[in-house]
């Protein structure tokens, strides 16, 4: 379980992540929360981080 405080509304970041093919959720108005399946691979984690970065940069 990972929480990230961000300086924009979590909802807009979540929608931006959807556009990048990534599903994340929130835990508060400006906090993202990631709880992937426990079978996630290191490569998939890298991809998730990459896509999340792209989503946040697009905002």
């Amino acid at each position: 379980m990972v929480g990230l405080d961000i300086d924009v509304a979590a909802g807009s970041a979540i929608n931006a992540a959807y556009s990048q093919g990534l599903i994340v959720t929130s835990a508060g108005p400006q906090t993202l929360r990631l709880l992937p399946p426990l079978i996630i691979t290191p490569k998939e984690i890298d991809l998730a981080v990459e896509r999340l970065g792209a989503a946040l940069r697009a905002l």
Partner: protein
Amino acid sequence: MTADSASEMSSQDVMSLDKKYVLATYARAPFVLDHGEGCWVYDTDGHAYLDCVAGIAVNALGYGDAGLEAALAEQASKLWHVSNLYYTAPQVRLAEQLCQKSFADKVFFCNSGTEANEAAFKFARKWAGTHLGADKHVIVAFTGAFHGRTFGALSATPKEKYQAPFRPLLPGIQIAPFNDLAGTAKIMNDAVCAVIVEPVQGEGGVFPADPAFLQGVRALCNRYNALLIFDEVQCGMGRTGTLWAYEGYGVTPDMLTIAKPLAGGLPMGAVLISQRVAALSPARRWLPAWPRYWLGACLIRSSWPARPRAAVICSTGCRPQTCPTSLRSERVV
């Protein structure tokens, strides 16, 4: 509309029908999910999504797990539901496994995390009322906590937005400051029968408890003869790198509530209970008559032998200790 035509609905049709017929208690994502495989889900328009929510920590083994599918198919051909009036082997075997893999001596099964917390509150009040008198009935919960949306659990979830429309709530709940031992000590007294805390607060913003805080809360519970309940509905079953979050803290509760990933996606919850509390049996006069998700018991029972503890947690080699962006409960600020 027939099942056949339903499968051919466009995503816009699905969203329109949802708006028309389904009570809007959640804001939904702007796509319609169709199927999944591994850590990926696919919408009806063919888009793939890497799923880092997993049904909010429910789908711990992802989608299309062959072991779970085989167990479901096998059990579905035998029995789907069995009332609490009858014995079944899978349920007792699951209970045995849960006890053998934890501090617990007994297990209570239910259908969800909020029910598990309701049950834990009842067990605590019954325990205190039996041994120590009816005045010892206060349950202490913490700021930022989320324990569920049924009335008792909601009463211990001090979020104005969740509570305001539904007052009056359950009396006898006190809220203490999370990760503030001195502040918590001021709330504690002889009327407290139980303290409930999430070792890692999930909904509240992903805040791990400080080890010294949990150790101090344990000591306060001992001092005031109150039960310590850990709510590991979201942070338990491998999510923090150990099977149970409490193992990482070295603090043992008297009751542990679990649900979400327990049956890999079927609704199922449980309370793991120490002998100290379980000694109150026979409990049949006051236990709620919730159906226990027996099919789920079959599922998780079937999936565990092939996935021993370490494999469930780290089946991909993605050990929390070695992968900084992985599954460890951490907060990146």
